[in-house]
């Protein structure tokens, strides 16, 4: 196996250095090397969105990105969403609207919604539904998730 690679990236606003195998996915690096276990594994092949993170403003499935690919880039995970004043408006909206049940898809949904609202702060319901079609939830029927994202728009 080749040697570990030294990577420097901005993760949740902080400069982080880490070593990783060239074949390790970003998801594995986050969870195993950086102990950021808020990002969850749902399928490991890009079909469920549970591991969604925001990389240089782009929504990506961290299971489809290699750890070494984040060299010199900026990454936001669920752990980086809270500001000094507490919960992010999306987190507040998920809480207020009870937009989760088992919670394992939730970090991915919140990151997906963040990527959408950063780009399109006044997304319509149809746009929200379309955007979130890459994130699967088996508990909620999506109703309250869509409501929460629309509510967060209003509060931001």
């Amino acid at each position: 196996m080749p040697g570990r690679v030294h990577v420097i990236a901005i993760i949740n606003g902080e400069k982080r250095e880490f070593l990783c195998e060239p074949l390790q996915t970003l998801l594995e690096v986050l969870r195993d090397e950086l102990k950021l276990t808020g990002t969850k594994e749902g399928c490991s092949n890009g079909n469920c969105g549970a591991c969604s993170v925001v990389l240089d403003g782009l929504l990506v499935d961290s299971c489809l990105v290699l750890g070494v690919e984040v060299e010199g880039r900026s990454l936001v995970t669920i752990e980086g969403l809270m500001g000094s004043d507490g919960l992010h408006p999306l987190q507040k909206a998920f809480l207020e609207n009870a937009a989760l049940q088992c919670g394992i898809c939730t970090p991915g949904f919140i990151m997906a919604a963040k990527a959408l609202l950063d780009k399109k702060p006044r997304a319509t319901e149809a746009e929200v539904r379309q955007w979130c079609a890459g994130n699967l939830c088996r508990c909620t029927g999506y109703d309250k998730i869509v409501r929460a994202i629309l509510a967060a728009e209003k509060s931001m």
Partner: protein
Amino acid sequence: MAVAKYVCTRTKRKEDRRLITGLSTYVDDLKLPGLLHVAIIRSIHAYAKIKSIDISSAQKLPGVVAVVTGEEIKDKLGSVPCAAQIPDLKVPRHPVLAIGKVRYVGEAIAAVVAGDRYVAQDAADLVEVNYEPLAAVVDPLKALEPGSTVIHEECKDNIAFVTKTAAGDVAKAFREAEAPIIKQRMINQRLIPMAMETRGVVAQYQPGDKMLTLWSSSQIPHLLRTLVAGIVGLPENHVRVIVPEVGGGFGSKLNVYREEGLLAYLAMKLGRPVKWIEGRRENFLATIHGRDQIDDVEIAVKKDGTVLGLKLKVVADLGAYHQLLTPLIPGLTGAMIVGCYRFPNVSIETYGVFTNKMATDAYRGAGRPEATYLIERVMDLVAAELKLDPVAVRQNNFVPMNAFPYTTPTGLTYDSANYQNCFQKALEMANYKGLREEQKKLRQQGKYMGIGISTYVEICAMGPSSGMPAGGWESATVRIEPTGKVTIYTGSSPHGQGQETTFSQIAADELGVPFDDIIVQHGDTSTVQYGIGTFGSRATAVGGTAVYMALQQLKEKVGKLAAHLLKTDSSAFVLEGGRVTLKGDSSKSMSFFDLAQAAYHAKSLPPLPPKMEPGLSATAFFEPSNYTFPFGAHIAVVEVDPETGEINFKRYVGVDDCGRIINPLTVHGQIHGGIAQGLGQALLEEAVYDENGQLITGTLMDYAIPKSVDIPWFELDKTETPSPVNPLGVKGVGEAGTIGSTPAIVNAVVDALAPFGVRHLDMPLKSERVWQAIKNAKPRA
């Protein structure tokens, strides 16, 4: 009940803050020092002899700690358990790792343990299994035939069980039919539960005190403990099961799996902690599936649509081995086949059949969605045959509201209901008459709108122990701590339902303490008294009631202690605002904190009376006297594009009655998710095995679960008929949406296609199937 401040309110969930910040701990988030990783070698054939297994290359790979096969453990580990008790049930051996033969694609054959997940997987690829493939038995109807290949040598055929029951005089009912007997074969297709968190197990063994700790993503920690102890041969009190945060179950984690026995064995063998996280493809192959019945229904009716009698034949594809409850699920279909309707003459034949597939077992609804689908399709078939309105057919057959408690011909006693009222509410919300007029107009414009109705009743709050394989009660301990904080211990270990919130609501009202002063502990068998688990829409109705009962005991003790401390003979105290106050005399009052301190210090003046024990806790085991029977009415309105067969929702209306509601937020959540899963069965989902027994819908690319774009807004309301079965009046709601929605949606599509002469279509109603039906149709004149 005490003054309700939290119960019946939209109390935000305690659980959510840790979940939305990524701070919760699921099995995969556990890291133990010295942790080893397990990869499993699984069968690529549906049915084959294992001629040999060569593990030598795998053993040589650097980093590999152990490779185990069925041969090594066959005399050391017991069978994967099945709890079903059915007369003459065939229960073939269900080994932890295959011995001699494999019987479904994905069956575990061997396991590799290594220090790293990658190495474990690489080594697994080096294990060479030499198979002799055999012809797989895939079609359950063929599996039933004499002369079919027999999957288990120790059984004489593939029929795991047959049950036949009848009530009333079915032959007479069919003789007296005023219209041709309506017959229909319907397929309740095989589904994949697909919890977003796959299964996962971590096991650790301390040889010094012979203690095994097993972390597992499970709905039933205590039952798992008892049963895993049996598999590995440890005394039960040497096994501790911890269920951390669970990412959904839907019945798929109401089970004991091979991997739980395997990981326990490996931890004991190696003396190091081991971890296995199921991959998504493994989850599709080797976690239980749901439904999978071929159902033949015949129904005899009068001209006005009154049902006289019904015959049902169920052929249930059980898969290759029994999981925990596999053979019991089809029985629930027969039990609930009469739905909300009053007809006394029923006959039911059920065949449970082995095939070379993954086992079926309890998937959200577990036998009841199948029943509701059948009877609600039948009601529409009756309406179509007799040219009656499907609303009228249902209303004509409902069990009347003055008939409760109502004993069905299948031997169940429905607790309480008002079907007419609930249905009427749904019809008004949907503006049913208006919809029919709109439909007529649209048809003239060549647009195909369909209105689908389903009125359902389900069996919940499982259940009385007499009807359950391993106890149907639930337990709770409520402890007031020395500082007045409250801890609830529940056996109803949740996996997304929100018991930490609902049980705290109940306790906050009963004890008059702040909601935030209460926490709920669950899922650890070393801290929580024995319990049963969360499934069968039972957590609030049975587990919540146990909490309520423990609170009543505790209040009695609080009253006695307060009477003693406040020097009064009366023990009638009001618990409110964090204080304990004598009824009618506010001068006799003390804070909850002071009372708790006195109970624990046990030395305050005056000292505790001789018979009063120090401490403040109570434990209750609630044994329900009956099941509960929630009900509801769902109306789906769709439009079908005749050019493409695509189905678009126009409306979705539901009125559900789950008895008394503790928290509307969590109840709505359950209904929403349930409807989505029922929609999945109606329109999208189908686990397909090819003729060789290969699962060809083995990834999320091939097996479509509903996405945000597939789901309409839900228009929901309720009626609230309390259950007399428990003091909370709660019925249960976890499965209601799944049960109500599937027939409503299918009925809507078939209704839309009525102008094409379509009478029935089997699920899932993918656009190609709908398009084909339109293409093959001869439009009515």
